[in-house]
């Protein structure tokens, strides 16, 4: 090692001609940029002429029906620009505006078709591209899209409060009860909570995948659900690790229950965001009858979510304000979701958010799992299994009351 009297760092620097590290890191990127530039400038040498006609793909993301018009928001899924030349509704050419220019890759455009549509009837819209291809879109039942005025947002907010905020708050009233039950029972309640959450995670994932199938596939389709789930799982894990660090620094005992409750509330809140989107979008396309039955169903279904929030803080004495905040975090997003779903529904975004909610719930389940352990350190002891199964059964049964 003494040969040249040089350190290993100096040796390394010598081998790379003494270039600074940042330049070495940048070098491959610069070469790629130069190669791409040359490739483009030379007109893709060696590849020859393009084979076959342009691939024209448009995904219909949103349909808005107003008296006398049908508006479709389309997004170009395919690699090539698409020009909408003509439009048909139910096998008849119609006048329309919008989409005069070709729509580029991933760009979206709204076309307004003039059609004296009749409520309750079915319509098939066909957009004809300049290459003669057709993009068809079915409207199974024509219903006027609600105008998004203050009264509409008020209605959606009320709906969100009915199905999200109130049931969660009511569910939290189980707090005094679970404080008094024996320790063994408490584990059963926690297991029940995990069961409830597991059901919601599966439910959200499936719903997300279904929505992903409807949306523009160029954004990844089902991948969006998984990306959303992974993102929220990692984010919440990071946040909870950060909270644990702070807790250690502050040496505040007992705060773990509060943090856990917060995480549960955030997880459920993200799930309720998705639920709100589903309700709002179903309402806006007329697929949802705002019956009392549905609201009652959601209320019963979501009341169990309140229980999940208060279970981790049962052994503490959280202030009323803190409890209210937890309830709002869990239930409030239903209002936001209803607004998004009704006013700016986008299947790709909704699929991502459903995945996001599912990932958050899985993270919460991981956080809650240790609290199921009995004296022997087992997680899946008979009481916990019974609790889990009851949780699944409860969610399944109450879920039958609502189908959006």
């Amino acid at each position, binding site marked *: 090692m003494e040969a040249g009297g040089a350190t290993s760092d100096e040796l390394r620097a010598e081998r790379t001609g003494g270039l600074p590290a940042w330049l070495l890191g940048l070098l491959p990127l610069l070469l790629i940029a130069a190669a791409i530039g040359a490739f483009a400038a030379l007109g893709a040498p060696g590849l020859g002429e393009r084979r076959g006609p342009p691939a024209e793909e448009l995904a219909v993301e949103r349909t808005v029906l107003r*008296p*006398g*018009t049908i508006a479709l928001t389309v997004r170009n899924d395919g690699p090539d620009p698409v*020009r909408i*030349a*003509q*439009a*048909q509704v139910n*096998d*008849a*050419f*119609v*006048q*329309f505006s919008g989409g005069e220019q070709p729509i580029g890759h991933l760009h979206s455009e709204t076309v307004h078709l*003039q059609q*004296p549509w*009749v409520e309750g009837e079915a319509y098939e819209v*066909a957009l*004809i*591209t*300049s*290459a*003669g*291809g*057709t993009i068809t879109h079915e409207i199974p039942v024509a219903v006027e899209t609600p105008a998004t005025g203050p009264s509409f947002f008020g209605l959606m907010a009320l709906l969100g409060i009915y199905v999200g905020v109130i049931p969660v708050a009511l569910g939290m009233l189980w707090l005094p009860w679970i404080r008094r039950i024996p320790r063994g029972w408490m584990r059963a309640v926690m297991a029940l909570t995990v069961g409830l959450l597991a059901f919601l995670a599966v439910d959200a994932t499936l719903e997300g995948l279904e929505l992903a199938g409807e949306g523009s596939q160029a954004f990844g389709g089902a991948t969006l659900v998984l990306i959303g789930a992974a993102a929220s799982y990692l984010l919440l894990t990071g946040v909870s690790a950060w909270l644990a660090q702070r807790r250690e620094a502050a040496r505040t005992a007992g705060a773990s229950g509060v943090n856990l409750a917060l995480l549960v509330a955030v997880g459920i809140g993200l799930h309720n965001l998705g639920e709100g989107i589903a309700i709002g979008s179903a309402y806006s396309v007329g697929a949802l009858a705002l019956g009392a039955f549905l609201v009652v169903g959601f209320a019963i279904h979501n009341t169990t979510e309140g229980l999940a929030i208060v279970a981790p803080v049962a052994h503490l004495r959280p202030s009323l304000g803190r409890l209210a905040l937890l309830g709002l975090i869990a239930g409030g997003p239903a209002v936001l979701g209803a607004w998004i779903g009704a006013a700016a529904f986008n299947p790709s975004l909704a699929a991502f958010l459903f995945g996001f909610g599912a990932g958050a719930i899985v993270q919460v389940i991981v956080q809650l799992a240790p609290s199921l352990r009995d004296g022997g350190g087992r997680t899946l002891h008979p009481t916990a299994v019974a609790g889990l199964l009851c949780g699944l059964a409860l969610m399944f049964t109450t879920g039958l009351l609502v189908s959006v």
Partner: protein
Amino acid sequence: VARLTRRKLLAGSVPALGGAALLHSTVPHRHPWDTEAQAAQGHAGHAAMGGGHASFRDGATVDHAANGFDPHTIARDFDWGTTRRLASGRVVREWELYAADKEIEVAPGVKFAAWTYNGRIPGPTLRAREGDRLRISFANASTHPHTIHFHGIHPAEMDGVPGLGAGEIAPGGRTVYEFDALPAGLHLYHCHVRPLAEHIAKGLYGALIIDPADGREDADELVMVMNGFDTNFDRANEFYAANTIGFAYMDKPIVARKDELVRVYLVNVLEYDLVNSFHLHGNLFHYFPTGTGTQPSELTDTVMLCQGQRGILEWRFPHPGRYMFHAHQSEFTELGWQGFFEVVG
């Protein structure tokens, strides 16, 4: 007929109940008895160029010059060919036809990779006199094999089908179809190469008119080849028309003269649909099936034709004004196959 709805009735009755005639006339409103067209315009919020009819998008037109043909020209374009007289006194009538691949704008902004005879769809309307000797030189400038199969009476080897006579004419190949112009009437020609539906639907067809030896009464003559285009290859047509371009005779009517005899040579070549039809507004016409008889089969305003069926229509307009003609399959009508006659005094 306008639909009666409770809302419309209420809206219509409010001013009446108020008894305020002035208000009634100044406030925009709609009556249940308004015509459908007006109602549709009211619905749409502005008067469309189509004037309440189905139409292509406003402001966009087909570039007929780029296509190389105009449906208005085609309607009155009869190709008599070139003639020479044999020593026997017989007339030999000759045409040059070629098949070519060509991109056609079948509707404003919609291009279709068509196959054509002489660069146009329908191909030239060949016209001869009964008993002429017909010689059609055919050159295939397309990248696919084609033939010309004529309807009429001729020897088997002149039938223009694969395996008989010259059979399929390969790209770059040539042949001559030669036969007597028989019988008098309205016929058609089309490619007969497999797959047949595709070779016809892509545009390889045209009309063949053989006038009776003693001619027909003078008239304002028109040819209408009813066709369609399947631009997305789902074996169903996206566009329907007479002479290729949908709504062409809506945007610019065919001009006719009051009391003058109008004669339409009507041919149906529509692929993928079982039948097609022709309906005339405000009038009835004499119908001569296949144009082979001298007596009309009926006086009617609607005829139905399957693919390959054709006939001659004759009528006079007693009143000036605009009269629609269209397929009486409403779907075809609103997908392009409709037009107007503008009758002038």
